[in-house]
């Protein structure tokens, strides 16, 4: 079983990455390398959305990769949001809490709502 990484960067403030397969000790290095090319496309303060709908399994090594990715984005005032994990993957996030549960969304609408909310919070003081 392998991991397939696809990405799309329509704007510089938001990129989406789709993961398919297994993210474990055997594939996390390939994932790290792929992300190494994708994260520079997102501006500082931008959002990286990782769509997990086709991810079947995640191990602690995979969680570490995601945590590291989140930390890197965080250091650039960016956000890493996880979208639509399958139940077994979602359960792992809930138990280990390697990334805050609040940053895992069940669908795009929920994600957009969150981003909208965040934007309003940032613009509120001026408006």
């Amino acid at each position, binding site marked *: 079983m392998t991991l397939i990484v696809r990405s799309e960067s329509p704007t510089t403030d938001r990129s989406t990455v789709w993961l398919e397969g297994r993210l474990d*000790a055997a594939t*996390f290095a390939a994932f790290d390398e792929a992300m190494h090319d994708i994260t520079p496309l997102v501006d500082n303060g931008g959002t990286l959305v990782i769509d997990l709908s086709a991810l079947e399994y995640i191990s*602690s*090594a995979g*969680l*570490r990769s995601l*945590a*590291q990715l989140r*930390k890197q984005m965080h250091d650039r005032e960016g956000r890493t949001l996880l979208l639509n994990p399958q139940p077994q993957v979602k359960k792992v996030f809930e*138990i*280990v*809490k*390697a*990334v*805050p549960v609040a940053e895992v969304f069940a669908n795009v609408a929920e994600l957009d709502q969150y981003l909208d909310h965040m934007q309003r919070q940032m613009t509120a003081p001026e408006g």
Partner: protein
Amino acid sequence: MVLRSVASRLALGVLLGSAIVLVVTGGLMLSHTREQILKQTEREAAAVSGWAATRIKGRIDGVAKVSQVLAGILGTRRDEAPALIRDTLAVNPELVDISAAFIPRNTDAPRDEDAPVARRAIDGKLSMGSRLADPELYWRAPWFVRGLNCEHGCWQAPFHSVERRDPLVGYSVAIPGKPRSVIGVADATISLDWLQQLLGELNKPEHASAFVIDASGEFLAHDWTSYIGTRGSKPLLAAIAEGRNPVRITPEMGGRVSEPVWVYFVPITGTHWTFGLTMPEQQVLADLRQAYTVDILLGVLALAGVSLIALVITRRLMAPLAVLSERVEDVARGELDFALPQLRRNDEVGRLTRAFDQMRHQLAGHIDTAKRIAREQERMTSELEIARQIQLALIPEPHWLAADGRIELHAALRPASAVGGDLYTYFTLGARHVCVMVGDVSDKGIPAALFMARTITLARTLATHARSPSDILGALNRELCKGNDTCMFVTLLCGVVETETGLLTLASAGHEQPVLHAGGSAILVDVETGPALGLDREARYPVRVLTLLGGDTLLMYTDGVSEAHAGNQRLYGTHAILDSVARIEEGAAPEAYVERVLGDVDAYVDGAPAYDDIALLALTWHDSGAEGVRLDAAAHS
């Protein structure tokens, strides 16, 4: 043996190929040459036959002329017949006799004057006679009857006279007259000896024999004199009748020959005669055979030469290859130090030699590298073994009895490779508390092992003054977050038991839920988890409190147990762990729990290598005397 070399095989191939070409072209050449020779012989024969036929015709034309002139004269000068024929005979030395035979005026009383004949004896003397002297009545004889019908003259059949040995033949012309249109026959006879003589004088090809045959199929003359006067064979006569020229006649066809012969013939105009030439086929083709034999011998010689040259050239070309083959065998044996053949040209062999030389050097380099890597790997292995020993030294003994035997625990640690990231530990906290931990560092191998060492060391140090697992995890988390750029983390389940009361406080940092075996049933203890240690500095860890009763056993484990699998097998799962635990007799020692679960997992993966590290810790509360009430509470710190 000889054919094992490419050179010999090539030479043999060239020889065989050329031989096939030689045989095919030789066959074609033979048939073509045979036709040519037969055609040439035919031309030669035609020339000889034509010439002979002309000669014969010239000779007999003279005879015919004499007869025709005589017949013309005799029509009106019957009475002068004896004198006329005598004089005519005298001036025509080739004639044997001349007859002027008239139809008798009175057949009952024929007279000598009716049929005078002038004869030339063998000695040349002329004499006169009468055809009445013939044994049969001349006017009824076939030659006379036939002559009457030959107004323009015709040749009679050859015959032998009593006096002469040589065959004779007459030319008869009807004598015109009145009142009947025909009154007699003028006949001039010649000997056929000259014909025989002519055949002998002909400039024939060697071994050829000539003949002249008449319309009835009898040989008038033949080089084989015994054939004279006999009939020609059926195939010959048939061929002459049909005009098939030339014709091949064999003994099998009924020919009067002892071997196959070719017969060429030409009809002699003005007669019903045919001149023929017989050539034995063997003789006709003798030259061909000789020439062909010489050709074949030369061809074979050329073949042998070509093969020899091919052999020598290939040997020369292949010689360096033979050396290379031996060297390759050396390489196969692992010997790389040897001399290669001198490069003579930059052809395929030269390129091969150069490439082989490069290959040898590269191979030597690879072998050196491989040896170095093997040495390094060996060193790494021994270092890993030492690291394993050190890691195991960080872990306390698997079996522990504490609090005067009220607490008994048993643990096991099985790294998937030499070192691993799973851990368990236990220690006392002051006089009245015991702390147990089971943890799992993200990832496996050396980084995980180092992070595990850091965790287990920090845990003992930081826990010294704490009494609540929530505090222990919080302090440990803050410490592990420092400088953790790689985001390594550890999930940890921490339990603190009050040794006086059996009160158990649990807190979890993203770890698997423990199993409690109490009152004959196995249940998962639902501990709300906080984030794994090392990621979020602000993390908080809620506690779960419950009271252990005598004989209760708490089983803590890592995902190496719950997610054990082989290949594409389903994960082992917490339900399977609950089942394993439920089947254990109540009051069993913690060692039995560890052994049962490990045994069941091993049976499940059926000998497959472990996918992940395994840590397992069973804690049994032995307090038969205390009348405790099970307390079960969750609290958020």
